[in-house]
């Protein structure tokens, strides 16, 4: 089973996306043999009221909940986020969040963010954090949004040992405490592979060696990204078949409690 923990639906404000409806994304998943995908609203990245994006997402995937796992985008500085969180979990059956601190103009170290992480954790929800949305060099003239530095993630995972984090669209972990099992950090995060190299520097192989194959999960970033590069990484990776199986889907199934 292949589980993609990093997928999206809907429109993105700064670039046309294809395969961004349920039917089109499912067709793409079928073509690539991806069984399940965690999806969030691409529109919610730039909506002021992200909850409107969550509502659109839930309506969009209504008949495909067996394949698409919705995560909610919540901004802890927006009025009513506690209500939104409650509605997302209790009414929409959503089991996880995706946070955009740089796009929503807050810090992961802000107390309000801590409140959101704690509230989601108490509800048993996983929390995914894309370290970037698109390459900085192509950002619109309206934007100047940096990637999330890994140092800020280190502090976050330390501050919330009971939370379950998924780190998306990141790289450079092998130069960070996040990339080592012996760093003293809690084992409360998994790392998604879409931007990790599988040859040359081979950060993916290094992470498996230093952090463990149990802590790496498959993700593509589709339909922002072609899914094929991520699939190709697993094909060329020098690793045991058992480890590849963990990364393809077993780890995600465990982490997402599927």
């Amino acid at each position: 089973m292949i589980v993609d923990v990093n997928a999206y639906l809907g429109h993105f404000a700064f670039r046309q996306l294809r395969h961004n409806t349920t039917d089109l994304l499912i067709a793409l998943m079928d073509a690539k043999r991806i069984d399940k995908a965690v999806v969030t609203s691409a529109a919610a990245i730039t909506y002021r009221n992200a909850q409107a994006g969550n509502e659109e997402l839930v309506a969009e995937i209504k008949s495909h909940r067996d394949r698409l796992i919705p995560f909610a985008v919540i901004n802890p500085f927006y009025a009513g986020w506690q209500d939104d969180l409650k509605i997302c979990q209790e009414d929409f059956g959503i089991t996880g969040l995706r946070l955009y601190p740089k796009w929503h103009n807050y810090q992961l170290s802000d107390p309000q963010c801590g409140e959101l992480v704690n509230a989601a954790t108490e509800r048993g929800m996983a929390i995914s954090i894309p370290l970037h949305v698109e390459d900085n060099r192509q950002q619109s003239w309206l934007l100047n949004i940096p990637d999330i530095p890994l140092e800020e993630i280190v502090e976050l995972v330390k501050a919330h040992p009971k939370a379950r984090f998924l780190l998306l669209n990141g790289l450079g972990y092998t130069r960070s405490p996040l990339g080592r099992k012996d760093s003293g950090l809690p084992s409360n995060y998994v790392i998604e592979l879409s931007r990790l190299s599988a040859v040359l520097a081979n950060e993916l192989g290094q992470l498996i060696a230093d952090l463990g194959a149990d802590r790496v999960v498959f993700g593509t970033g589709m339909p922002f990204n072609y899914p094929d590069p991520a699939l190709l990484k697993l094909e060329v990776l020098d690793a045991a078949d058992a480890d590849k199986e963990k990364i393809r889907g077993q780890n995600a199934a465990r982490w997402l409690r599927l």
Partner: protein
Amino acid sequence: MAVPQVMPGTHIHMRRISRRTLLKSSAAAAAAMAMRAPASARQAAEQPVHSASSGPLRTETVIDCHAHLTHHSRSAWEADDRKLINAADKLGIDQLCCSILTPRRPATPDGFRECNQWTADGVQRFPGRVLGYCYVNPGYGREALEEIRRCVGDRGFVGIKLYNEYTCTEPVVFPIVELAIELGVPILHHASHSHYFVDDQPRMSDGGHLAELARRYPEAMLICAHISGGGDWEWTIKALRNAPNVWLDTSGSVTDEGTVDMAAAVVGVDRVVFGCDSSMTAGVGKIRGADLSAQDKEKILGGNMMKLLRRRRS
């Protein structure tokens, strides 16, 4: 004079990803192929693929139009170069058009000569796999032209690599372009278009500059480097729509869905050339993921670059 080693159908052992797999737009077959034993994969790689071209030009060779060997100031340069070839083996890339850049720019004549000597050594160390680009700084006019003649004429290099020392529309670059036309070799030009000023690359060229240079020299063969790592790729593709002698290199770390498809649709598939620029799985994965025919992918993966390299006059 050394003969450029552009050898169609180079036989590669230990290949993990077969050509047939690489060309599949559906990864369903790709996944199935990847699960097969290496012998089967190699057997599949050796299956004849119908050629998009006519005449003697075969398009089976997969050519990375934008690659780099490692500067020898890095102690691990030899191992890193070997890793590049191993990665190419895994991904089914037959040949890599390589340059070495100086760690600091602007490059001095001694600096770019040293780099090109190491590139020539790389061509010798990996015969049939590494093809050389001659890297120069156009600001050193006489030395740059001499170096290009030496590298292309004597060493069999296949093209010229220009970086960001000058914007490509500055007159200092023109003699380089005129020599490239004389020799019949392409220029791979570093390029990017961001919607803000890039402080550390004040003389960066973009697709618009390359289109302007192409209009001035319609006989030149210009390759716009890394559209998938050169800022706003939609801008770049549109800027080059009406520049028939500029080819778009797909390399770069960005894997945005639709990039290769839009490039092929806007400038025509014959002007899109496959590259990695060290982002290997990104480079190959983009082509695999593009919603194009196998015939079009053959052109992008090697056929188009092969045609460029065969325009060489010497």
